[in-house]
């Protein structure tokens, strides 16, 4: 990412990880074998990213890493030097919900809410590359996000509603 190259590099930082999370730069001196998901939750207190299967199956921990939908449980922090991460806390701005979050709220695209941050991030990722997805495309895209409550009906409605939101409101995170 172009922005991160502006961070000062000093000798002794060779083992460090530079990472941007929701627009804030972090320099982690000795990351150790911690996953991105655990680091976000335990070190940054960003508990919106949920851990469940801890092996990349359920999608509850979905975040964006350099705009790519990623299971935060399945990547190590130390492998993300120079990367930009967006979590569900990084959506929206100035106290206003992101259009995808707003769509989930209006369509009640959740019940217990545990899968919801992952669903929201997966929706952001989908609409960034496919702004007007068909129903089949939507269902295929969410094959990696498990929900135990909704049967996916209201989730797909929320995705369609978000897709129908004017693109000007969808830009930026």
């Amino acid at each position, binding site marked *: 990412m172009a922005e991160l190259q502006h961070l000062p590099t000093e000798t002794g930082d060779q083992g460090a990880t530079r990472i941007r999370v929701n627009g804030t730069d972090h320099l982690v001196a000795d990351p150790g074998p911690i996953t991105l998901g655990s680091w976000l939750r335990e070190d940054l207190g960003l508990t919106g990213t*949920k*851990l*469940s*299967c*801890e*092996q990349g*199956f*359920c999608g*509850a921990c979905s975040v964006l890493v350099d705009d790519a939908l990623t299971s935060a449980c399945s990547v190590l922090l130390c492998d993300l030097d120079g990367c930009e991460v967006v979590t569900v806390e990084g959506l929206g701005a100035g106290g206003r919900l992101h259009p995808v979050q707003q769509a989930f709220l209006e369509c*009640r695209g*959740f*019940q*217990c*809410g*545990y*899968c919801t941050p992952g669903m929201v991030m997966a929706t952001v990722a989908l609409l960034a590359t496919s702004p007007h997805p068909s*129903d*089949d495309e*939507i*269902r*295929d*895209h*969410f*094959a990696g*996000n*498990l*929900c*135990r*409550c*909704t*049967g*996916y*009906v*209201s*989730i*797909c409605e929320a995705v369609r509603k978000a897709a129908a939101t004017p693109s000007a409101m969808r830009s930026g995170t």
Partner: protein
Amino acid sequence: MSLDDRVRQVGDVVLGIVGESERVATTAAMLARVEYAELPGIFDAALAEASGITVDERFPDNVVRRVDREHGDVDRALAGAAVRHRARYRTGRAIHFNLAARYCVATCEVDGRVDLLTSADAPYFTRKELAEHVGEPEDRITIRVAELPTSSFGGRTSINPLFEPVAVWLAKQVPGTPICLRFRPEEELAVSQTRHSLEFDIDAAVDADGRLCALDIVTLADHGAYPSFVTDVVLANCRDRALDLFAVDNYRFKGKAVLTNNVTAGEMRGIGVTQVIWAVGCHLDELARLAGREPLGFILANLASSSPDGAATGGARASLTQSLAVGAERMRAGSATNGARNTSWGVAVGLHTTGLGTFHGGDRSAATVTLHPDGELVLRVAAPDSGQGATSAYARLLADALGVDRERVQVAPIDTETAPYDRWGSVASRGVFVVGSAVLDAARALQDELRRRTASDGLPDLTSSEHAARVRQPITVSGESHQTENPPTYGACFAEVCVDETSGRPKVIRVISVVDVGHAIDAGLCHAQLAGAVATGWEFAVGSELALSDGTPLSTDPHDYRFVHADDLPSVETVLVEQPEPSGPLGARGIGTPAVVAVAPAICNAIRSAVGYRAPHVPVRDEDILRHLVDTGAGAAVSG
């Protein structure tokens, strides 16, 4: 009971270690050396009673419960019937796989009091069960319910014998210090209790007019290693629920639940009723075909017009005639079946009761409401939200009854010190029916109190400054509800399935679920329950089960399981029918459990119609359908 020197199932506790961190405790555990003396195990429920291997000394023959019921003369009716059909069925160990990681925090004070923070749909029932497991009096235990909801579907109703009692025992090693225990993901998947695996032996017959004249059901439940009251619920529902749906003059039920060394079974959405109505729904569909009757017409001709005990109002016929008509019309309008290979639709009906009625001594709930001088209302109930919308439902009931904005109502966090007693918690679709009734009673109590204080008939504007001036101290009132009724909620399901002839995979291309909810207080929440229930029923029918070999899970990797994903249900239509329930608040019935029941038999009946395969076991396996296709000549059209 799980903390003696025997291990009875995979996942059982061998050694407990308290450490300063999970890493420390795990490292210490890996250093432990354990000597096992191998004992004989019993893994086949059919052999448990006569095996001579005792799982729990309190039940020497492993039989924890027997349940019987009969009316009429079923043997005579079967012998003299026009068309008779007998078959066996088995249901698999369906898995909740709730996503929220299972945690609890237990503290044992130096004086012995226990404080437990956990997820529990039934806080007071949890306290009771925990007290029995750890040998402490109930009033020395406080249960705190985690504020962040987790889905449950029965998986987090009460304690798990391998979890909370273990946490308390560990906490006793370090009095005054809270300890945290969690299930790792593979434990949550493989050992955290499943739906009961049941075997059914069903013998049924019709007379010359196509009327059901005999129904004989024998049921065997594999409970696993650690006994609980859930076996009573399973068998009671297997005994009774078919009679809420179908009229039959000659009926016999014999049920038995046994212990084995398999993973212990527990509660799951629609306990027992999901399994028995699947088996009966498939069996009667088959019987109808043998009798040359069209399945939908057969169902309509045999619906019960009132409950056999006379308790239910309306009955299956009144409720389902409309639901079946609505669903049938929709299915015919949009069906892909005409001309499509290996594609057809199936129909089934289902029900479950709203709440528990007189089961195990009756049902009661209470609610307290505190009105603060600024007009804020705080509602306390001991029935948590696990995503079904309980919190917002109770807040809405209270706010609407008092004529105030919903934002004025806060539902307080739940613990057994501050929340009023509620017997069963958020289970058995009893929330609005039982707890909601207590909330409405509390609303009435508040209105009475305010009238008394203002000495007028009118109600004050709770947000006005003159009200605040009058009410300088918080006012707390309570409401109660006692319920002996548990009226049924009926539903119909139409499912359209296309079977892939190269793999045997049944693709459910369309589901229409119609449920009579009595009165939809919040239609969105009702539709949400129906949609989620379709997914639960789908998984029960064609998804995954916990497969065990000699009691050991074949896999603890979720990638090896077929959980329902977004691409498995391309078309789900949910329809609400509203025939008010006289005993329900605002005419409402419970929905969450009833909505599951008709789905799996509808899917299996659709498979039968599409390719002629009658699954004796759920979840249905692709290879069994494929074998059937190969044996009968793949692609041969089979009329429905």
